């Protein structure tokens, strides 16, 4: 098991602070949780403790960005994107170059329960026309996306991170390409399209299904917006069936983004798999199992999907 993506983000941010004098970090009393503490210790003059006032933090960041700085505002995904009205007006509409960072995404956070779980953040951030949305699958990708965001000047961006440790799915020489999906495994019967903490589980699920004679591919979508529509169309034409996996509510997240991208693509069936209803307490592993987001759960959903009419319309099923 590799590191949590929040940890890689925090280490990278502290490192690139030295070479990026315009990067500033704002905090709402969660610096040790969201891992911006290392940056705070290294560059206290560029770290701003705003207190438990996320709406104000978002507004201050927007003003800083409009004066040429590159602010990272980090909090739990639910708290920071919960200030949607401020993000929409002060950051989005102004095309302010702010990085909104939401850690502790999904049910994977475990015991703290629903109030601390970011389960609607992707839906909210995706809905803003100029907001870029990124979700790294492992520590290496979290490092690369953080580096990318420090240099990006195109406008607002959202970075979604995990509390929990996640599997390493990318190799050491990994090259991050903004807007491009990563095909981790090829398959002909079904393509699993996953993001974030679920990617590692999806790879394990594909291996389980392979042992049972099913040819299942896995694609990692780190850039949820703009999504890699070319890759999705290639997967659609190859497999005719796509299963999306995410630790997020089933409305408005990765699954919705995939369906939107394939909305005029003939001959493909998509199933969206994610979190139904509100979250709850339990260990992260227990919750992943209960909601079918661990390898066994994904394999079960995939096998059922393949058995019940995922096959290409008019295809060789």
């Amino acid at each position: 098991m590799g590191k949590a993506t929040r940890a890689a983000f925090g280490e990278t941010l502290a490192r690139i602070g030295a070479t990026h004098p315009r990067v500033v970090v704002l905090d709402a009393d969660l610096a040790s949780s969201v891992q911006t503490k290392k940056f705070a210790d290294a560059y206290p003059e560029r770290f701003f403790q705003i207190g438990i006032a996320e709406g104000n933090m978002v507004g201050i960041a927007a003003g800083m960005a409009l004066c040429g700085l590159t602010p990272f505002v980090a909090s739990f995904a639910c708290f920071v994107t919960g200030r949607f009205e401020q993000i929409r007006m002060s950051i989005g509409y102004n095309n302010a170059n702010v990085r909104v960072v939401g850690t502790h995404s999904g049910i994977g956070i475990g015991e703290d329960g629903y109030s601390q779980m970011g389960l609607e953040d992707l839906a909210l951030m995706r809905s803003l026309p100029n907001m870029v949305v990124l979700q790294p699958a492992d520590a290496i990708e979290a490092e690369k996306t953080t580096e990318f965001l420090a240099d990006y000047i195109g406008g607002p961006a959202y970075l979604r991170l995990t509390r929990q440790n996640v599997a390493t799915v990318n190799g050491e020489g990994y090259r991050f390409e903004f807007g491009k999906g990563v095909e981790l495994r090829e398959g002909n019967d079904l393509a699993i399209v996953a993001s974030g903490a679920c990617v590692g589980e999806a790879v394990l699920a594909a291996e389980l299904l392979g042992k049972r004679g099913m040819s299942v591919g896995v694609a990692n979508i780190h850039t949820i917006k703009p999504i890699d529509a070319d890759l999705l169309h290639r997967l659609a034409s190859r497999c005719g069936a796509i299963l999306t996996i995410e630790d997020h509510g089933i409305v408005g997240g990765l699954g919705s983004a995939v369906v939107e991208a394939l909305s005029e693509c003939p001959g493909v069936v998509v199933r969206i798999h994610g979190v139904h209803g509100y979250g709850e307490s339990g260990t992260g592993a227990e919750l992943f199992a209960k909601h079918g987001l661990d390898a066994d759960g994904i394999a079960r959903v995939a096998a059922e999907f393949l058995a019940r009419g995922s096959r290409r319309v008019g295809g060789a099923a």
Partner: protein
Amino acid sequence: MPEGFPLTPHTGAGTFARSSVTSVEELRQIARQLRVDSLRMIHAAGSGHPGGSLSAAELVACLYFRVLRYKVGRPDDPSRDRFLISKGHGVPVVYAALARAGCIPLDELKSLRRIDSRLQGHPDHVRLPYVEAATGSLGQGLSVALGMAMAERLDTKHDYRTYCLLGDGELQAGQVWEAAMAAGKFRTSRLTAIVDYNKVQLDGHVRGIMDLEPLAEKFSAFGWHVEQIDGHSVDAILAALEAAAVQSERPSVVIAHTVKGKGVSFMEDTHAWHGKAPTTEELERAIAELEAA
């Protein structure tokens, strides 16, 4: 009325030039012109918010024609003073000031609220960079202005002040007090908030909806330097803004006591004219009153 007024020259950090070319009497005339312009624009648009443009006319005239340091044609000049109108519905009087200062064509004022216009119903920074930030969702502007003032401190090359004009009704929003608390903590002495305290909001009198008093004490308690003035007195506005500009430890707020709909008898002190365009007959009566005053 000349085509655009001469502007306050850059004078360096700290204060602004008393020797400015725009006289107090000229500022009064400009305020009257901005009122006429605002009403004409809102009438032409067929919708808008006259009351809050009329109450802020002297404040906006003093800012754009005496206090703010900026260059016409250079809305991106990094050393310019920043001015945000947090009460975004009051933006017609700001558009009028931008036009009279020569930043946008006078003729463009007719495009207020029209499709494809830079003069959106509420300020749009991307379309019109002269407005420093989009506002209109009330309660957010002071946070953005605070961010600008905090950025100025990190800017080793440029000195500027940040001004934020707030409505009184929006002080009911919690975020304003989050920003007030933070500005007190960070001691952003180069931030000046101005409250257009016209006592009336959309549904009625502020006092009856959610009273703000004691307002000066609230800002004081958050660590601000407070000036309370008659917001229609040019002399008082200039003195208060100058007193704010010399603060070195605290942010400043100018609580400007104003009259909603100021200058038009039938629009004064009533919420009926918060968000309604005048008819042609009403417009003519209003302009006749303003020109006779």
